[in-house]
C-alpha cells in the first residue's frame, strides 16, 4: 500500500481542511463585477388563475434594472422532464408544460410569478412588493386520492386528469399474483404513508448567471450535483444555447441529498437574465424559499399485501401506491416511484410473484423528486413493515421469518426485472444479531421498565439498486439520458496527475477517496493526485453524483482511464529499457523488466512522455492523458440488516433511540472512515424521517412546516451513538473495483427498524398497535396507545 494511503486506508478527508477553515468556495462566495440581484415574487396561493401581473409601479423604483414576468419567457422552452414513464396501457405519461415564470396560472405556493433584477437585493425586494398580482383563486387539490376522483379540480387544464400515469409492474404477472393470493394460507395487509420530506441541505440553492458579449459565452454558477446535466437540459430544452457556448460550474456544494440534481427555474432565469440585462445576475435562496421551491421527497400512500403458504414462505406481493408528483414534473420525478421503487419490491426475499401498481398524481404542492434513497426507502419501508406485521400475525419471530425467506443463491433474477449479482443476507443478519446483543435485550428492557419506560426492539433488512445505471437498460425504461460516467486522467511531465471526473463531490469525500484508488494502481503517493470536478469547461461530459453511483460508475471510469495510462506508460518504459512492453511490470511507482534488475521510476517515464527525445515516436504519440467513459452493465446491490432499540415513555409518548446497529455489505471499500461517515449521515436522515421530519400542507395548499420552527430536523442530541459495521463484503462482480456504493443505505435501511421497534415497545406495554405512520411523534404514539 502507498505510504499515504491506498485502497482500504481510512485517510482523513483532504477537502475538510478547506471546508473547516472557511476556505471553501461555494456558489454564494462568487461575486462578479457589476452583478445585480434577483428577487422572485412567489405565489402565496396554491392554485389560481393569474389574471394580471402589473409591474408598472415597480419599474421606476430605486435600483430596479428590469422586471421579468411569464410573458418574457413566452418564446422560451419550458422546464424539461428527464424521464418518460409508460403506463400500464402502453401509453406515455401525461406531461404538462412547466414555465420558468408562471404563465396564466399558479399551481403551488412558492411558484415564481415575477422576478425583479435590481442593484441590491433589498431594492429588488422592495420593488417586488410594489408588483400588483391579481389571482382568481381556484380550489386546491392536495390529497392524492381526492385529486384522482372524477370532477376534481385539474392542476393542468390541458391534461385529461390529475393522473400522470397508472403504472403496472410487471403487468403480465398480475393474474398470477392475484391467483397466488387466492391460494394463500395467510395474507397480511398494511396501509401506510411514506411522509413527505424536505431535503434541507445546509447550503441553500444559489445561481449566478453571466454572459460575455465578446465571445457570446454564457456561464452559470450553480449549486448542482451534476453540472453537465444542467448544461444539457437548460441549453438544449429551455434556452436554446449550444453546449459550446454554455459553461456550467458547480464549485463547492454544501450538501445535495438529491434535491440539487434537478434543473430549476432559477438557474434558467439567471442565465437568461444575464444576457438580457447584460450583467451578471445572482440569486441566493433564503431558507424560507428553499422550503417552498426545492423539490420535496417521498410522499407515497400505499396499500401492500403479502401472501404466505402454510409453511410461512412468501408466495406473492401486491402493492398499490399513490405517488405525489406535486404541481409539475421535476427532472427525474417520474422514475422515482416506478423504476427506483417497483424494481426493489423483492427486497432480500425470494418471493416468486410480485405486482406493483403506482398511480402518480398531480397536486397543488411543490414538485416531488429524488431525495436520498429515492424510491428505495419507500420500497424498503413498505416491505419491512409488512414482513414484521406478518411475523406478529403468525406468531413467529420476525428475524426467523426473514431468514427463512432470504435469497441465498446468486446471481438471483427477481420477478421485478433486476438481477442481483452478489449478496449474503445471512452473513449481515448474523453480524447484526451479534452487534445488537439480542441476548442482553431482556435485561435492558427490565431496566427501562424500572424507570417506567417501555423498551422495544426492531429489525429490518434492505437491498438497494445503486451504481445507476446501464444506459441501454434505462433508455428502454424511459430515461432521456445516458447514465455512464467519465474521467480524464492527465499526467503531468513531473509525474503528478489530475483526474477530471464527471462525478461531483458535495460532501462525499471524492477528493480523498478517488486518489486512493490511483495511488494503489500506480504505487505513487495520493498527494500527487488531484481531483477536478464540477465544471463543464474542465471535465469531460459526465452525469454527476446521485444514486450512490460515484465510486461504482465514476470510480470505474477513472480506473479504466488509469489502465490506459499504465498501458501507454509501459510502452514508453519498454522502449527506454529496451524490453518488450509485455515484460514491463509496474510496482510501487517503478517500472522494471521482469527477471532483470533494470528499472525506471514513474517520473522518468512521465517526463519522457512530454520530452520525447528517447521515445518511439513512430509508434506512439507523445503525452500521457487518457479519457474513459464507463457504462455499467448492471446496477450494484448493497444490502444489509439494521436493528433499533427504543425507549418509550408511555405517559408522554416520547420515543428515544437507545441503540442502533447497522451491518452493511457494500462490497469492496476504498476508505472505511468515509463509508462509516456516509452511513452515519444516512441514518440521521432515516431516523429523522421516522421520528421527526414532516412536510405538511393544509387543505388549502398552505405549507404548514415552512421553517425550522415547525419542520423538525434531527439534531445530534436526538441520535444515539451508532454501531456500524461493513465487514461483510461480497464484491460486485461487474465493475473493476468490486464496489457497490454506500451513500444512501442509512436513509433507506433505518426507518422500518425504528417503527418496528416502537410497535414492539407498545406491545410490551399491552398495546397491540398494527401500524403507526411516520413521523412517529409523541402525540401520535400517545394517541395510538389510548386506542
Amino acid at each position, binding site marked *: 500500500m502507498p505510504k499515504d494511503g491506498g485502497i482500504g486506508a481510512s485517510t482523513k478527508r483532504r477537502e475538510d481542511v478547506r471546508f473547516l477553515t472557511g476556505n471553501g468556495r461555494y456558489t454564494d462566495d462568487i461575486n462578479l463585477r457589476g452583478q445585480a440581484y434577483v428577487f422572485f415574487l412567489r405565489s402565496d396561493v396554491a392554485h389560481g388563475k393569474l389574471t394580471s401581473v402589473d409591474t408598472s409601479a415597480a419599474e421606476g423604483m430605486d435600483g430596479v434594472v428590469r422586471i421579468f414576468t411569464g410573458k418574457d419567457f413566452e418564446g422560451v422552452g419550458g422546464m424539461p422532464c428527464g424521464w418518460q414513464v409508460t403506463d400500464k396501457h402502453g401509453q406515455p405519461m401525461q406531461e404538462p408544460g412547466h414555465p420558468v415564470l408562471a404563465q396564466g396560472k399558479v399551481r403551488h405556493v412558492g411558484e415564481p410569478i415575477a422576478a425583479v433584477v435590481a442593484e441590491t437585493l433589498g431594492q429588488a425586494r422592495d420593488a417586488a412588493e410594489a408588483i400588483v398580482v391579481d389571482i382568481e383563486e381556484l380550489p386546491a387539490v392536495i390529497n392524492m386520492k381526492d385529486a384522482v376522483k372524477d370532477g376534481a379540480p385539474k392542476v393542468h387544464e390541458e391534461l385529461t386528469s390529475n393522473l400522470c400515469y397508472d403504472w403496472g409492474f410487471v403487468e403480465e404477472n398480475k393474474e398470477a399474483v392475484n391467483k397466488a393470493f387466492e391460494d394463500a394460507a395467510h395474507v397480511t395487509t398494511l396501509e401506510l404513508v411514506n411522509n413527505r420530506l424536505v431535503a434541507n441541505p445546509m447550503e441553500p440553492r444559489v445561481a449566478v448567471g453571466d454572459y460575455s458579449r465578446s465571445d457570446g459565452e454564457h456561464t452559470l454558477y450553480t449549486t448542482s450535483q451534476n453540472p453537465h446535466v444542467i448544461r444539457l437540459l437548460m441549453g438544449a430544452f429551455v434556452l436554446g444555447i449550444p453546449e459550446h457556448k454554455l459553461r456550467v460550474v458547480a464549485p463547492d456544494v454544501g450538501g445535495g441529498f438529491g434535491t440539487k440534481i434537478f434543473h430549476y427555474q432559477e438557474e434558467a432565469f439567471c442565465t437568461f437574465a444575464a444576457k438580457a440585462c447584460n450583467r451578471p445576475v445572482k440569486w441566493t435562496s433564503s431558507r424560507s424559499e428553499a422550503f417552498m421551491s426545492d423539490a420535496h421527497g417521498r410522499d407515497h400512500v400505499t396499500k401492500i399485501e403479502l401472501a404466505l403458504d402454510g409453511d410461512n414462505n412468501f408466495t406473492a406481493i401486491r402493492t398499490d401506491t399513490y405517488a405525489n408528483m406535486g404541481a409539475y414534473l421535476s427532472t427525474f420525478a417520474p422514475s422515482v416511484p416506478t423504476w427506483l421503487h417497483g424494481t426493489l419490491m423483492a427486497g432480500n426475499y425470494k418471493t416468486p410473484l410480485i405486482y406493483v401498481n403506482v398511480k402518480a398524481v398531480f397536486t397543488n404542492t411543490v414538485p416531488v423528486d429524488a431525495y436520498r434513497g429515492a424510491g428505495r426507502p419507500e420500497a424498503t419501508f413498505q416491505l419491512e413493515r409488512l414482513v414484521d406485521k406478518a411475523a406478529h400475525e403468525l406468531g413467529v419471530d420476525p428475524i426467523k421469518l426473514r431468514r427463512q425467506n432470504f435469497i441465498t443463491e446468486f446471481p438471483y433474477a427477481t420477478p421485478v426485472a433486476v438481477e442481483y449479482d452478489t449478496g449474503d443476507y445471512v452473513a449481515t443478519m448474523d453480524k447484526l444479531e451479534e452487534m445488537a446483543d439480542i441476548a442482553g435485550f431482556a435485561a435492558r428492557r427490565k431496566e427501562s421498565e424500572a424507570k417506567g419506560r417501555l423498551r422495544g426492539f426492531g429489525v429490518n433488512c434492505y437491498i438497494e439498486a445503486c451504481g445507476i445505471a446501464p444506459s441501454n437498460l434505462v433508455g428502454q425504461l424511459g430515461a432521456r439520458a445516458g447514465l455512464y460516467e467519465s474521467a480524464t486522467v492527465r499526467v503531468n511531465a513531473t509525474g503528478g496527475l489530475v483526474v477530471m471526473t464527471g462525478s461531483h463531490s458535495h460532501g462525499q469525500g471524492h477528493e480523498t477517496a478517488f486518489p486512493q484508488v490511483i495511488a494503489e494502481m500506480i504505487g505513487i503517493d495520493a498527494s500527487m493526485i488531484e481531483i477536478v470536478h464540477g465544471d463543464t469547461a474542465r471535465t469531460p461530459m459526465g452525469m454527476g453524483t446521485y444514486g450512490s453511483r460515484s465510486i461504482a460508475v465514476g470510480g470505474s471510469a477513472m480506473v479504466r482511464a488509469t489502465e490506459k495510462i499504465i498501458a501507454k506508460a509501459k510502452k514508453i518504459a519498454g522502449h527506454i529499457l529496451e524490453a518488450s512492453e509485455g515484460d514491463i511490470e509496474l510496482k510501487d511507482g517503478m517500472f522494471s523488466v521482469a527477471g532483470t534488475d533494470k528499472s525506471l521510476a514513474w517520473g522518468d517515464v512521465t517526463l519522457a512522455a512530454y520530452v520525447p527525445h528517447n521515445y518511439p515516436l513512430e509508434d506512439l504519440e507523445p503525452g500521457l492523458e487518457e479519457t474513459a467513459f464507463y457504462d455499467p452493465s448492471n446496477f450494484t446491490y448493497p444490502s444489509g440488516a439494521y436493528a433499533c432499540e427504543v425507549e418509550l415513555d408511555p405517559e408522554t409518548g416520547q420515543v428515544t433511540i437507545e441503540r442502533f446497529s447497522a451491518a452493511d455489505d457494500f462490497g469492496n471499500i476504498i476508505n472505511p472512515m468515509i463509508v462509516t461517515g456516509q452511513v452515519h449521515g444516512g441514518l440521521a436522515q432515516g431516523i429523522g424521517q421516522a421520528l*421527526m421530519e414532516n412536510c405538511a400542507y393544509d387543505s388549502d395548499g398552505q405549507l404548514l412546516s415552512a421553517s*425550522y420552527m415547525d*419542520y*423538525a430536523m434531527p439534531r445530534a442530541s436526538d441520535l444515539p451513538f451508532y454501531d456500524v459495521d461493513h465487514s461483510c463484503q461480497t464484491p460486485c462482480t461487474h465493475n473493476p473495483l468490486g464496489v457497490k456504493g454506500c451513500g444512501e443505505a442509512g436513509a433507506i435501511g433505518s426507518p422500518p427498524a425504528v417503527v418496528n421497534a416502537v410497535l414492539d415497545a407498545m406491545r410490551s406495554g399491552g398495546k397491540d398497535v398494527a401500524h403507526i405512520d411516520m413521523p412517529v411523534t*409523541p402525540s401520535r404514539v400517545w*394517541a395510538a396507545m389510548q386506542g
Partner: protein
Amino acid sequence: MYNFDVERPTSIVDAVQAMSKEEAQPISGGQTLIPTLKARLAAPSVLVSLTGIEEMKGVRMSDDGRLCIGGGTTHTTVAAEAAAHYPGLASVAARIGDPAVRNRGTIGGSLANNDPSACYPAAALGSGATIVTNNREIAADDYFLGMFTTALEEGEIVTEVKFPIPQAAHYEKFLQPASRFPLVAVFVARFSDGVRVAVTGASNDGVFRWTEAEEALSANFSADAVAGLKAEGDMISDLHGTAEYRAHLVGVMTKRAVAAIA
C-alpha cells in the same frame, strides 16, 4: 427588512422619550424581533435599543425579599445569577433556546412578546411576579391577556420584574421537536400560603393558571393529588400535537414538576 432608524438611549427616561416618536418600537435581544423584521412582518420607523441601559440590567435581592431582575437582563445572566436565590427560576432561563439565544434574549423582551409557548410567562405567572414598567407596577395575574397580548400600553417598557421566592419551584418542559420551545410546560411554585401552577404552550389563550391543580396541591402537595385532574380550555392543536394530547401533557408535566419538588 425595511429601513429604520436606531436610537440607543442609555437611561430609561431617554428610552421613554425616544419611544414617543411615531412608529417607534423597543428592541432588546432581538431574538424574536429581528427574525420578524427579516420576514418583513414588522415595519417600525425607529428601533429603540434597550441594550445600553445599565439601570435595566442585573439581578438583585430587594429588602422585602423579592428577587428583582432588570428588564434588559439576558437569559444567561439570570441562569447564573438567580441560581443562588431562586434556583427554580434560574433553571427556566438556562433552558431557553440555545447559548446564542440566551446570550442576547432578555426577560423583558420575552414578557413583552408573550409568545403562547414562551417560558418566562409561565415562571412569572407561576411565581406571582410583578412586572415593573417605566410608569407602573402590574401583577402577573393582570398582565398576561392572551396570546401575544399583554397589559402593556403603547410605548411602555418593562424595566424590571420582581419575583417573590417560593419555598420550592420546578419548571417541567416538554419540547416541541422543531423549535425547541415548549410543546407544553408547567411551572409549579409552592409558597407557604398555597401553590401556584402556570401552564405555557398549551392554550390558544396563552399562559394560564391551572386553578384546579392549585387547589388540589394546596390541600395535598403530592403528584397523586393531580392524578385525576384534566386541564380544560381552548387547547392548541397543530402539527406537533392535538388539543387532547396537550391537555393530557399539562397533567403529566404538572405531576412531574410536583414530584421533582416533593
